[in-house]
């Protein structure tokens, strides 16, 4: 059975159809990219899986549990870690406190009135920060970090819940090209090593075609193509409606890169 199974998702906002019969599956350790023009329904699908939206029809199954319509906090308990298009962190805290917070929540210590929060789970948090290459910044205020680094910390936060699935909404948005490649490599490495499934959206075609195992193309809320990068790159429909000349060039460059 697949790690994530999405079956027949429908969602409409007023008269606008944001998702129609969206179905796909994702295996553990696999990177699946969802691409498509603005308004294609990528964020809608993400928010349904993440629990921020409830679908009109269809269901989402994560590791055998149906999670459709569960609140985000419940979906996290089922093993879903999430990063957002605009990084969501606790701006008043230090880098390590951000990760400690997620760890405290994961271990059911968030409501404690007796412990002291400052040192709780600190070593573990620094370990996670080490994974994403941010251990040195542990004690800096997160508000002082460059945006690319904030996104790395957000990844560490998402990893705190020992996720089976990472849901990453434009993980490299707002980053410099070099940072992007490094982050995607980091994610791919973590996914393979820890058997984490990664579902991500991205506008940067180099990141998509360079790192995804499979690609899903959405258009007007419907899946118009899916498959390995090569197949998607060659799909004439995808070229027409989405990639265009420059996207194709980027996709080709990523595909031929070593």
């Amino acid at each position, binding site marked *: 059975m697949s790690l994530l199974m999405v079956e027949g998702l429908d969602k409409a906002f007023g008269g606008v159809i944001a998702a129609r019969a969206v179905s796909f599956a994702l295996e553990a350790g696999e990177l699946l990219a969802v691409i498509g023009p603005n308004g294609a329904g990528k964020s809608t699908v993400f928010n349904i899986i993440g629990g921020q939206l409830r679908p009109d029809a269809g269901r989402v199954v994560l590791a055998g549990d149906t999670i459709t319509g569960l609140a985000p906090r419940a979906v996290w308990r089922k093993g879903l870690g999430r990063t957002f298009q605009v990084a969501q962190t*606790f701006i008043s805290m230090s880098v390590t406190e951000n990760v400690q*917070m997620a760890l405290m*929540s994961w271990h059911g210590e*968030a409501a404690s009135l007796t412990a002291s929060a*400052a040192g709780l789970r600190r070593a573990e948090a620094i370990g996670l920060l080490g994974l994403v290459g941010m251990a040195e910044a542990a004690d800096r205020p997160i508000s002082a970090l460059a945006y690319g680094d904030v996104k790395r910390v957000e990844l560490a*936060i998402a990893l705190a819940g020992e996720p089976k699935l990472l849901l990453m909404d434009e993980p490299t948005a707002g980053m410099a090209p070099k940072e992007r490649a490094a982050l995607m490599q980091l994610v791919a490495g973590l996914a393979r090593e820890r058997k984490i499934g990664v579902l991500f959206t991205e506008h940067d075609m180099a990141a998509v075609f360079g790192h995804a195992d499979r690609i899903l193309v959405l258009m007007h809320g419907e899946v118009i193509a899916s498959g390995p990068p090569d197949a998607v790159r060659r799909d004439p429909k995808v070229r027409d409606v989405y990639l265009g000349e420059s996207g194709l060039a980027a996709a080709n460059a990523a595909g031929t890169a070593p």
Partner: protein
Amino acid sequence: MDLPFLVTQSLSGLASASSLFIISCGLTIVFGVTRIVNFAHGSFYMLGAYLAVSIVPRLLDLHYSLPMFLAGIVAAAVVVGLVGVVMEVVLLRRIYRAPELFQLLATFGVVLVIEDLVVTFWGPLDLMGARAPGMRGAVDILGNRFPVYQLFLIGTGVLVLALLWLLMHRTRYGVLVRAATQDREMVGALGVNQAILFTGTLFLGSFLAGLGGALQSPLIAANSHMDIAIIAEAFVVTVIGGMGSVPGAFLAALLIGQLQAFGILIVPKATLVLVFALMAVVLIVKPWGLLGRPEAPATRAAPEGIANLKPFGRVERIAAVLALGVALLLPVFGDAYLVKLGTEILIFALAAFSLNLLLGNGGIVSFGHAAYFGIGAYAAGLLAIRLGMAMLPALMLAPIVAGLFAALFGVFIVRLSGIYLAMLTLAFAQIAYAVAFQWVGLTGGDNGILGIWPPDWASGRTAYYYLVLVFAVAAIAALRHAIYAPFGATLRAARDSAVRADAIGIDVKLYRLAAFALAGAAAGLAGALYAFANGSIDPTLLAIPLSIDMLAMTLAGGIQTVIGPLVGAAAFHTAKDFFMPLTDYWRLLLGLAIIAMVLAAPQGLAGGWARLRSRFSGAPA
């Protein structure tokens, strides 16, 4: 109850709805354009009434006629409109981008200033306005007499609605107002002269408030307490109708008018409660009011409140030990006055500290924290007097009662955010106030209950001081620990990013509710201690001015710090105790101080200390 009676009752409901609409639509228009909830709107209403009392008789002396009466009413409203313009230019312009809490407090500062100025100019006595020539009688409606002037009020309300509709839909100004109400950023992008738009809107809104007050002057004697009474009602109307919506205000005013007219027949003593209960019900079903639209959450770079929580450094630890030492020795070197002052400071320090658990730590703007202080005081007082309970058990039970009420109200409050949340905390506080005021049988009504004294062993000033010291320091230490514990960190996390908190398994509303109950319980303990210190309880312990005092203490100390509210409470209460007997202008001075604080030092006293500390330790500010 026959048909004619119901008709006249309904008509008088319409008349009060009409007045309420005229006032509330001004408030809602100002909010729509400026996004500021103007507390001073009630003061403008009061000014309108007083000005009409002064102007109308002079005009009637010139020529006793209805047109002269109307001219006087309009003139009073125009003057109030100009006062609104002054307020916009001098104050509001500087705080359009400030956090809601500061905006509310600044406009409340204006309330205090106007209240004292009104008493200075017109004196403390209630003043009745001149009655309208030709409208002094009554007409016969289905066999019942109904005052002509009430009919005139109904007509005026409809006329104002019609004129506003024309203004909003047939003039360029009106189009801009509607556009700004829907999307403020867009209007900025259109290159509209915002200064004129905003100033004009303040004129219009204040004019309407003044008109409402002037029209009431023949019916209700102008007095210096009518500002708070009306603003609470106007808040309710705008919140029920949807903030920024004129038709919503009309609808809500109609509902409330009828509810009051008929509610008084069914539950004569609980009309205030009925009105606020209606508001609570509407907000549960439609959190943005009947015709309101969801407010997009404000995105701010940094949250207001406790940031960068650090354990005490050496300097702070020494200061804390010194403060505790002074507190312990106070009865040794201090006189009776100092001991009394110290007792009160300790009590208010606990109250302000509990408020900052919500405000600074949770980002929950509570505008009715006095409610839980008051509920604690009433619980202690009623348990002691009506049930004959001893003081210590009463002191233990009172916080539980206050915490339970805070949890009950909190269930509704934590569903909302931003300005709606603040309004709802205020509304629940007013419900509590109304119950204390109207349920005379239980609470003694306006007079309250006397004779709540500690038992002999604690009845000396010094003994009671030490008792308060033990309770207050223990409660403050416990709350402080909660702030440093994971629970406090989780609250700050939810404040910083509710979306992120939710995505890492945190039930944001549940944590806010728990914080609300905890803060309510702590405030309740403070209230209970106050009841036994004072020997009496009365409705002012739950009233808006005390809530504002607590906010002022917390802000004066700085909501960015953990200990700030304690410093603020000591500074504020000492200043109040020292200056209030010396001057007739305490409210004026307090109002000006609040305005100055919001404009000049939004970080408060202890916030300034934190900045100094980071500057000298070389850390980035």
